[in-house]
């Protein structure tokens, strides 16, 4: 995998630029409802997914574009989804917080903090029971480790030795709540309490994340149980784009400035010859230009189909009219 550094760079760069373009589309009103930018945390999704196979499964969070893109989702269909178009990955039904592509093992971003861990555990367990050699990675934030449902999932996965990598993206805050104000004990300690190996890794360095993941995945494929990785990171931008118009006072400016210094795109970019980086950057720009064009050209879904897919069984719901 000699091109690994390049691929990793391409991924972090793609996510970075995807988010920046998405923020533009929020500003221009093409993305309604705003987004939770992944800016600054790109190294985690990139590093984790670099150590997974195409058939492996992942679930993401409300801050989920990075997870989805790193696992291989089409930026064009993902951007179309954010714009609510029929051509989006979810036919415009999911939006930013629910982007999914089951064909590449992306079981979806999930807007409920702490909810996806148990879902992924069940999915990986089921696939292995059917004989598929898959593992899974589920992303969540430092806030999620206080949700009982996630801690229950730690227990189930550990007990039944389901090879799931629990990836905690510790960006220091749950919205405005600092991690020290919310987490008694430590994050890794919580995993260890369930008998799960747990490691802290520098989430700003995509290669470190990839290596930690690769080691865990190797143990898991060899029959090991679940593990946790706490990736220390920093959110460069707002919790959600609504903060761009409403100032919330919770992170000291010096802290933000310091946090932004260790930039995963720069860290990984510095590992590449300038020329290579330029080529990748150009490729990424082209991809995103095309993605935004594709997104904005896509038709808006027909309101007549507002309840499409409500029931997989074909049940047709009564509508609400008088």
């Amino acid at each position, binding site marked *: 995998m000699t091109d690994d550094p390049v691929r990793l760079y391409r991924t972090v760069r793609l996510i970075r630029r995807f988010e920046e373009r998405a923020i533009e589309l929020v500003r221009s009103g093409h993305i309604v409802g705003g987004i939770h930018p992944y800016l600054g945390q790109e190294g985690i999704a990139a590093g984790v997914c670099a150590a997974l196979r195409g058939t492996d499964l992942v679930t993401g969070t409300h801050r989920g574009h990075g997870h989805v893109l790193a696992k291989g989702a089409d930026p064009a269909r993902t951007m179309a989804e954010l714009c609510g178009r029929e051509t989006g990955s979810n036919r415009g039904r999911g939006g930013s917080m629910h982007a999914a592509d089951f064909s590449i093992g992306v079981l979806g971003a999930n807007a409920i903090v702490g909810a996806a861990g*148990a879902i992924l555990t069940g*999915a990986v367990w089921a696939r292995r029971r059917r004989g598929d050699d898959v593992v899974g990675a589920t992303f969540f934030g430092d806030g999620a480790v206080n949700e009982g449902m996630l801690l229950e999932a730690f227990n189930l996965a550990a007990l039944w030795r389901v090879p799931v990598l629990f990836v905690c993206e510790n960006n220091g805050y749950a919205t405005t709540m600092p991690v020290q104000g919310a987490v008694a004990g430590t994050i890794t300690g919580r995993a260890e309490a369930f008998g799960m190996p747990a490691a802290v890794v520098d989430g700003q360095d995509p290669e470190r994340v990839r290596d930690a993941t690769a080691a865990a995945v190797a143990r898991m494929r060899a029959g090991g149980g679940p593990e946790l990785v706490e990736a220390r990171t920093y959110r460069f931008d707002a919790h959600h784009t609504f903060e761009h118009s409403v100032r919330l006072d919770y992170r000291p400016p010096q802290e933000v400035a310091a946090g932004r210094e260790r930039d995963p795109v720069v860290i990984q970019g510095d590992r590449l010859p300038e020329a290579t980086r330029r080529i990748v950057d150009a490729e990424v720009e082209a991809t995103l230009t095309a993605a935004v064009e594709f997104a904005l050209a896509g038709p808006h879904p027909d309101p007549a189909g507002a309840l499409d897919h409500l029931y997989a069984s074909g049940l047709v719901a009564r509508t609400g009219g008088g």
Partner: protein
Amino acid sequence: MPRLSYRKALTRALADELARDSDVFLLGEDIRVAASNVTAGLLKKFGPERVIDTPLSEQAFTSFATGAALAGLRPVIEFQIPSLLFLVFEQIVNHAHKFPLMTGGQCAVPVTYLVPGSGSRTGWAGQHSDHPYSLFAHVGVTTVVPATPADAYGLLVSAIRCDDPVVVFAPAGALEVRADVDDLAPVPLGRGVVRRAGDDVTVVAVGHLVHDALAVAEELTGEVSVEVFDPRTLYPFDVDGLVDSVSRTGRLVVVDDSNRSCGIAAEIITSVLERVRLAAPPRRVTRPDGAVLPFAPALDRAVQPGRDQLTAAIHLCMKDGS
């Protein structure tokens, strides 16, 4: 024509579906030793990979089932207490129910939630005696409440084969019902049945109350000719079938063991009124608003709908109107 108990019918349905489809498996608390007696013999027959005892982690195992379903399996979860559905309400409503639409039709979530012993089991008091089927009818999760052994079998089989989540309430008051059953067959979801023909009034009765309604109808023979309609499925409700009956009788009384406000009785009455002009105001016999079942048996009974109340409601309905 073998005599079959309701409980045994549930066991048979589980056994038949486990045998028919290797994707079906059971999850629950104490189901291996069959504490509720519903899963009796299944561990021996299908082994510990298909009959899985869980830790007391209802939220995680409910979402684990969602994940397993997303990956193609058909989990059946047994819940020991009806109010455990409160505990996993988020997991069912926000995830299992919503995944198909939110992903734009990329997946299905065929999970069956089985509650043997719903409603009052005399002496189990406030936290063990709920009958929350109307909640699921409101959120739009397919909800069945079989009244007879044949339906217990047939509806549970259909629930397991359904591509959507289905909640199966097996009322404590029906579990000991026995009947001669000619042949066991799937019963279609969403289809009610006239249990007893009559001309003067249609009584809709839910679950175990079907038997009370039949008894009251017998008692009233000669006086009032009562038709008893058993909806079997509460959501989607068989409005066509009921409208057919009420169009003939012109009068409607509903008896149901959930709370009054926003209960299924209100829905049934409203749905009928949207289609049929009644000869007299409809009546409903339910639990009181906000009911909490007190422990002392006489109080517990006082809070459940009774035969006397039903008789009185039928009389009032007959007296009223044109």
